[in-house]
């Protein structure tokens, strides 16, 4: 088969296709977004942008229980949203394979935190695989489905930004994708759901039994992990040995091509016999892992002395240089320092709201009005930077409206008149609507502003429940703000929709709604300029 260059995200989609996936669901999030966008290009696969990650995961459980191999995709913080179904889906297991692709973002290239989601595998008791390049990503995706069915468990495929967005050579398995057996898998209508209450209905009596099954499954997986060919021991120079996984394996090989390495392809549970065998063969052991001391703590708990986070940073990404310098220094062989040209200080070039962006006007007004603005996540978070400087908080998706409620409760009348929440349309659909319900239910009187640019711009223009289109761009329902307001008891004048390019209308509406002694929802509508340009090109 011909070699091609694919990004990690494209490789997941390719692998899913080769594995005969029938359903793909997810919520956008850098660096995971392109997986599902690529999966839509393959024939015979149903894909959807779900409203949020929790729902994508639930769709995934249902589809796999009805017999369809299912891929669920999200970024690292997305799994926080989907953590509830994750933990219990570990108990009920699967019927057809269920694979969750979860993209971590060390160094926060495009995220609000740099949590290490390997911890989820341990706490939810599910296996996790981590590939080191695009071809492994493709193969591990197929492997994840096999493991999911063999061990009756959801499997998480973990990537990091450097894997998701880097391109490397892939040799697609054209045979797998066209093999008679796979043709059959695809042609096979999923057999549908069949009742199995002790496995699928997690009331305490049944869940207690299932928890035992989960523990047994992880024991079996731990034992079998020693023979998995994706956990690889490479013995070369034995002065020291390195235990690593994912992109860090590539950095290690770049820095020390002759080092002995234990490369973990399955990063949970750990293959203990392989670790024991490796440690017998090498001198000092280094653990090279970005973010948390995940392997390190486990391996130390087994009684080994290893070097890890005492010399490596917990924050940020690694690189070949970080690995080379840190280990060389620890081995008492520090690298020669060479003087290189140092550049003068340059003005920074941070991302900014595009010229003509519909989000610009409102932030100018909010700045001039000197309001406290609880913000949210999306392009509009750039409203925090000069010249707008009009945002005071940003925590997680949907959080703006929740925080505004807390500020109102603690701050009383004066806070109501001085505080607004600002949230994008995709984010409002994701988890803002439930926050609006909470505000109405609990008698809040704040003003919440939805910045509706008709798309999920931050992550690259995905349609959402307010834009009237699905992932395939076929037409769909567009949620109606006014009816939504009505449904939570808001009167006509408590919900307003204004044009993003009419500053006076926006300002008048904000003043009027802040003056009123009732909950209000202001929707500022104007399509994203990049989205418009892209649409024109298509037409």
């Amino acid at each position, binding site marked *: 088969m011909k*070699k*091609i*260059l694919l990004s990690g995200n494209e490789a997941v989609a390719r692998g899913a296709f080769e594995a005969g996936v029938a359903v793909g669901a997810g919520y956008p999030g*850098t*660096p995971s977004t392109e997986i599902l966008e690529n999966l839509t290009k393959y024939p015979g696969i149903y894909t959807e942008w779900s409203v949020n990650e929790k729902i994508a995961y639930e769709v995934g459980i249902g589809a796999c229980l009805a017999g369809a191999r299912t891929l669920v995709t999200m970024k690292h913080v997305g799994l926080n949203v989907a953590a509830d179904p994750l933990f219990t889906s570990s108990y009920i297991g699967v019927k057809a394979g269920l694979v969750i692709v979860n993209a971590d973002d060390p160094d926060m*290239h*495009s995220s609000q935190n740099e949590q290490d989601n390997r911890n989820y595998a341990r706490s939810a008791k599910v296996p996790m695989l981590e590939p080191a*390049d695009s071809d492994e990503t493709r193969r591990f995706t197929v492997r994840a489905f096999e493991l999911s069915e063999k061990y009756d468990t959801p499997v998480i495929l973990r990537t990091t*930004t*450097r894997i998701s*967005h*880097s*391109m*490397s*050579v892939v040799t697609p398995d054209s045979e797998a994708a066209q093999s008679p057996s796979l043709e059959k898998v695809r042609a096979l209508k999923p057999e549908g759901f069949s009742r199995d209450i002790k496995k699928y209905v997690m009331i305490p009596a049944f869940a207690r039994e299932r928890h035992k099954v989960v523990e047994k499954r992880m024991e079996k997986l731990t034992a079998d992990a020693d023979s998995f060919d994706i956990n690889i021991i490479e013995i070369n120079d034995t002065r020291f040995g390195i235990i690593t996984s994912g*992109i860090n394996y*590539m*950095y290690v*090989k*770049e*820095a020390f*091509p002759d080092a002995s390495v234990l490369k973990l392809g399955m990063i949970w549970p750990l293959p203990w016999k392989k670790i024991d065998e490796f440690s017998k063969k090498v001198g000092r052991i280094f653990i090279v892992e970005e973010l948390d001391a995940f392997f390190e703590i486990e391996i130390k708990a087994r009684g080994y002395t290893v070097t890890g986070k005492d010399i490596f940073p917990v924050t940020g990404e690694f*690189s*070949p*240089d970080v690995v*080379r310098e840190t280990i060389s220094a620890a081995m008492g062989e520090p690298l020669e320092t*060479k003087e*290189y*040209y*140092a*550049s*003068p200080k*340059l*003005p*920074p*070039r*941070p*991302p*900014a*709201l*595009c010229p003509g962006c519909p989000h610009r006007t409102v932030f100018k007004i909010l700045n001039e009005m000197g309001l406290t603005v609880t913000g949210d996540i999306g*392009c509009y978070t*750039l409203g925090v*930077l*000069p*010249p707008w400087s009009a945002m005071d908080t940003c925590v997680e998706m949907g959080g703006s409206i929740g925080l505004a409620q807390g500020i109102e409760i603690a701050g009383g009348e004066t806070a109501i008149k001085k505080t607004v929440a600002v949230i994008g349309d995709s984010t409002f659909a994701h988890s803002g609507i439930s926050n609006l319900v909470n505000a109405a239910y609990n008698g809040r009187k704040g003003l919440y502003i939805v910045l509706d640019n008709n798309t999920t711009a*931050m*992550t*690259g223009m995905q349609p959402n429940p307010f834009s009237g289109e699905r992932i395939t761009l076929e037409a769909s329902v567009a949620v109606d703000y006014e009816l939504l307001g009505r449904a939570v008891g808001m009167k006509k004048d408590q919900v307003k929709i204004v044009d993003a390019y009419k500053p006076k209308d926006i300002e008048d509406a904000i003043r009027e709604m802040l003056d009123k002694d009732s909950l209000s929802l202001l929707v500022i509508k104007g399509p994203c300029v990049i989205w418009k340009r892209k649409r024109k090109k298509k037409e």
Partner: protein
Amino acid sequence: MTDKNKTTNILMVGVGGQGIILASDIVSAAALHAGFDAKKSEIHGMSQRGGSVFSHIRFGKHIYSPVIPNHQADILLSLELMETLRWVQYAGPDTQCIVSQEMILPAMVEEYPTGLEDEIKKLSQKTVFVDPKELIKKIGDKKYINVAFCGMLAKYIDLPEASWKQSIEEHVPRGTFEANWTAFGIGKTD
């Protein structure tokens, strides 16, 4: 011919919207078609909104890291003057710099810094500056300028013409191959 056993490291930098990603797709695929192992690393997301953009391209017999080790860039192709200096961590005195004199003011900056060309010469003696206006005049349309820059790059990495041709054909919009191929040729002979 480029030494098959040596790894070639190319860093492309610029500003969101300049077409760095397409240009780096073309270069990495051309290397693949020429029979090399190739990797490419860039970050999509926040950086696109007018921020700095970079792409690491590496090809050779066998490539591990998709990220270029510090100071090992063989070529630094910069589509924006100031951006050249933002990435000196990857360059050294032997780096061949190809630098567009295009100047794009970052948001909130009133005055473009001066003296940058002299600074870039301090970074590496092997620097060629390219006047983007002149180049556009020669190729006739600014749409194809990033492919013309691929042509300039081609002078220093010596991949077979057929590999370039195949790669450009695969990556440019349908109906624009001829114009892009001409732009590439102009870049290569400029």
